[in-house]
């Protein structure tokens, strides 16, 4: 293993995303898209201009009748507790 700052740890990649918009996948079928203002080693984060997408699956007896709904919420500034975070990535705009 090389010594010195040449080796980047995963959290160093998150540092590159500061002040950029990012995508966060969270537990509970939730996703966030917002501007990363701060983070720590626990993946606690502060995001600005956030859009939260909550996915709700409604199962039914017939496989063809179940539905998937999404609920979207917006927040101007949000602290996110790190223990809920699954992954962090650049936003994938569809």
């Amino acid at each position, binding site marked *: 293993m090389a010594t010195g700052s040449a080796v980047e740890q995963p*959290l160093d990649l998150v540092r590159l995303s*500061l002040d950029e918009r990012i995508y966060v996948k969270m537990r509970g079928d939730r996703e966030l898209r917002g501007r990363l*203002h*701060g983070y720590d080693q626990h993946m606690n984060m502060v995001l600005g201009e956030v859009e939260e997408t909550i996915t709700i699956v409604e199962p039914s007896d017939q496989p063809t009748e179940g539905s998937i709904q999404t609920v979207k919420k917006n927040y*101007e500034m949000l*602290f996110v*507790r790190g223990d809920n975070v699954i992954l962090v990535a650049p936003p994938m705009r569809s």
Partner: protein
Amino acid sequence: MLFYSFFKTLVGQPVVVELKNDMLIQGTLVSVDQFLNIKLDGVRVEDERKYPHVASLKNSFIRGSVVRYVHIPATAVDTALLQDAARKESQQPK
């Protein structure tokens, strides 16, 4: 300790704490500790009909681990300062 310091700058601000059990608690931030446990004054629970047992609650102590989000007024956050602190914090050897 980054977010501990961050929350200390927000003492006195109105915030909404969203818990992992989906409860929303509005109140004024009184204090925070190293575990990000939160004390709120003048609390109001978002959906009072659903949670009548906390209707008479004035002040609350919330264990940090049960928090999902803290909704913050954007005006209360110095984003440049926070980004700078996050950069510095990630460079410290842990």
